[in-house]
């Protein structure tokens, strides 16, 4: 992490309730350009909810989200996309009846980005060239995840939120996608990675935030995190619960 850089995203005291239940309960953190931040925590700890609020799917019930020095809490998703935020989905939802190429075309045409990568580059880099003219419904789940990622990248985000992108990939694919994520960060993109695979998190992140019950319980490197009694307790407790 480079402390001299100003954060591109600052989340402070974020609260998101569903009924009486606090999915996010005063979450605060920041990311700087070029940084890969890991967001980890047991099932139901609020990782996806945090991404949903930051990407405008839900309005926060309290606290603040500031992107690029402008308050962005409660702003509509498509506007946040135009400002430079994008994300992938834990369960990708591509436009099933459209072809892979058409899926990407929508984001290129409506993402509002100048200097976005071309369709050919995206297809090539994310291994979708062979299936470019097939309906997205024909893709396997790993390919659908890559298509979801290219949809996000076609809008040329400065902040990219990846929700369990690596889940379900084989070891060779994991190495490959780790390389791609690092290459994106090297261009100055800030990336938040939500993942359960600790090896993968170790390989790519500079820093992690550990979440439990909608609150941050640890911030630092993963190597330090795994020695924290509180973190161990939460993860072991979580494992036992399943």
């Amino acid at each position, binding site marked *: 992490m480079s402390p001299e850089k100003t954060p591109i995203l600052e989340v402070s005291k974020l609260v998101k309730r569903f009924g009486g239940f606090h999915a996010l309960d005063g979450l605060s953190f920041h990311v700087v350009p070029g940084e890969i931040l890991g967001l980890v925590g047991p099932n139901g700890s609020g990782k996806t909810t945090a991404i949903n609020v930051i990407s405008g799917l839900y309005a926060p019930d309290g606290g603040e989200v500031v992107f690029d020095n402008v308050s962005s809490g409660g702003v509509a998703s*498509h506007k946040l*996309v135009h400002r430079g935020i994008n994300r992938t989905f834990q369960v990708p939802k591509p436009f*099933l009846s459209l072809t892979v190429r058409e899926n990407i075309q*929508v984001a290129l045409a409506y993402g509002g980005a100048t200097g976005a990568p071309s369709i050919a580059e995206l297809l090539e880099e994310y291994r979708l060239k062979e299936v470019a003219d097939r309906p997205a419904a024909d893709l396997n789940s790993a390919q659908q995840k890559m298509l979801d990622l290219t949809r996000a990248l076609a*809008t040329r985000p400065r902040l990219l939120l990846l929700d369990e992108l690596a889940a379900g990939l084989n070891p060779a694919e994991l190495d490959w996608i780790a390389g791609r994520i690092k290459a994106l960060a090297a261009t100055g993109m800030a990336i938040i990675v939500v993942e359960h695979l600790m090896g993968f998190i170790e390989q790519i992140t500079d820093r992690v935030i550990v979440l439990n019950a909608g609150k941050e319980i640890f911030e630092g490197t993963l190597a330090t995190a795994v020695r924290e009694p509180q973190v161990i307790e939460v993860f072991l407790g979580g494992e036992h619960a399943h």
Partner: protein
Amino acid sequence: MHNASKHLLFILAPLVVVFALLPGVYQNHLLLFNFVIFLILAQGVNIIYGFTGYLPFGYVGFFGAGAYGFAIMVMHLQTPAPLAVLVGGGVAVLLGLLLTPLLRLSGAYFAIANLAASLAVLHFVANPALEGITKGPYGVSLTGTFNPTHAYYAAVVVMALTVGAVVYLKNSPFGLALQAVREDAVSASMAGVNIIKMRVIAWLASALVAGLAGGIYAWYVSVFYPDNVFSGEFSIFAIVFALFGGVATITGPIVGVLILYGIYNLIGFTTPQYFQLIYGLLIMGLVLFLPAGLVSLATRRGWHVP
């Protein structure tokens, strides 16, 4: 040549030429007129259902609103017919604007709410208290503008514009974005698409098309009652024709109207006693065996159908 030019040249142009020339060689002009009206309505359904995913069970509300918009202009302001048709389209768009909250509903809820809305408009127009404006349940008679020939050609023009609009949807990022919203609104918003704006535009475009068709219908028949121009048959037929051919294509709704409305009239003339039976069986068979419409016979073989 661009795909769009091909579609205009090989689909739109022949359709317009055929329907422009047919009255010269075929005597039943009312039937030809009805074909053109259904081509417009089926494409209007295509815009809102095929591209956007909203099934408009009350689509006739726009048609009736257009017919009454026309009638009121002609009766009270002696407006020339072509201008009154445009007003009819405008009235339908206003009704569409009024109904935009319905777009928050999805699936069957939208369909039912839309149906209810069309019935509400019918009862509003047919209210005896409004006799001074709409002639209430007693119907309108527009002798001054009666000119079926002009009305027919106006319908051909609106049909050309409507099919042209669908050609645009089929060949533009705008049409692609509409389909993206239909497939998954959340992902579409994360592609930068303003989903509310897209839905409203498609909704108003399909309202406009039906309103213009309704205005022209009023011009053509010149005498009608609220029940005629708000008849649920218009909605059902337009939806069935569009689905039969295959939505989200240019050719599907056209093929659907030509075949189904053709058969409808054929059975109606020759064996009216079996009409409902044969027609019902045909539609059931279609829904069971070809849910994606006739064009899916070709797309299943890997052919591209515009």
